[in-house]
């Protein structure tokens, strides 16, 4: 009997499209979207091999990751995110899973681990997105301090979370800032409930799960 592999969301249908607290004729302050179909590949360089790993990532992803802490890069293949010294995430969309190509290219220089099965990504966008994040974290989310290309690993309401700012008020005028929030699969439901509760007072539009830039 043939085996069938099917992705199952840990959110179990709780992130389906709906409007929360949006007055008639009003506009939502934020939009939330469960990003599905992501391949998250973690690459950790062996000692002294950071430059070689970054060269391999540039070959696979089309851009070199930023070696500075807490910086992310938009590459042709997806996002390259700093997650630690000499350690990066490459986030791409199905069906181009780069893990095996990357593992082959970095056999002597880095450890490659797929993380997509263990993470959930929520995309938070809109004019009040920074206010929503500030309710859960002690990081300064002012545009002058956390702009497009900045990322941070922190706790959102005590849940470990990676926040990647993929667009800000300057780069996406009219849309507002756009953040991708990555949390562990095991805390995904709690994470989503917190996000909805924090976003509700601002008027929240939950968009159909999928990929692409969500705008309210």
């Amino acid at each position, binding site marked *: 009997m043939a085996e069938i592999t099917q992705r199952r969301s840990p959110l179990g249908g709780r992130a389906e499209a709906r409007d929360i607290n949006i007055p008639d004729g009003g506009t939502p302050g934020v939009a939330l979207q469960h990003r599905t179909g992501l391949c998250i590949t973690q690459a950790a360089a062996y000692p002294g091999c950071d430059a070689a790993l970054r060269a391999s990532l540039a070959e696979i992803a089309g851009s070199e990751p930023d070696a500075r*802490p*807490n910086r992310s890069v938009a590459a042709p293949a997806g996002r390259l995110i700093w997650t*630690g*010294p000499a350690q990066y995430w490459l986030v791409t969309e199905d069906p181009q899973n780069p893990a095996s190509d990357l593992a082959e290219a970095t056999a002597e220089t880095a450890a490659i681990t797929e993380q997509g099965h263990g993470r959930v990504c929520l995309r938070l966008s809109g004019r009040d997105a920074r206010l929503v994040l500030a309710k859960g974290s*002690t*990081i300064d989310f002012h545009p002058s301090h956390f702009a497009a290309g900045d990322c*941070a*690993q*922190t706790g959102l309401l005590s849940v*470990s979370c990676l926040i990647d700012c993929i667009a800000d008020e300057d780069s996406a005028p009219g849309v507002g800032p756009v953040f991708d929030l990555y949390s562990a699969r095991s805390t995904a439901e709690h994470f989503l409930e917190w996000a909805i509760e924090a976003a509700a007072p601002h008027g929240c539009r939950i968009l159909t799960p999928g990929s692409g830039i969500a705008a309210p």
Partner: protein
Amino acid sequence: MFIIKCPYCGERDVTEFSYGGDATRAYPQDPAQATPEDWHAYVYERDNPRGWHVEWWQHSQGCRQWLKLRRNTLTHELGRTALPHEPLSPDDDEGSDA
């Protein structure tokens, strides 16, 4: 509640960090020749200083890196942070940069 300066991520709230114990204990230089008393001292014996101390902390909700932190156990005043391979002493008087 205090704010720790991670060498990689900058200033972050203490809630993002996990305490890792006394960072002044030195691993026996020659483990093969170390006596049970040496190991006992390294593993179990801890001072309880009143004043400046150097501690291990891990930025567990951030970059997950270990760091050394100079902290005054009496006043909670924070001093310099350092990477694990960098020397840092309780008597370090380079002042606070946290």
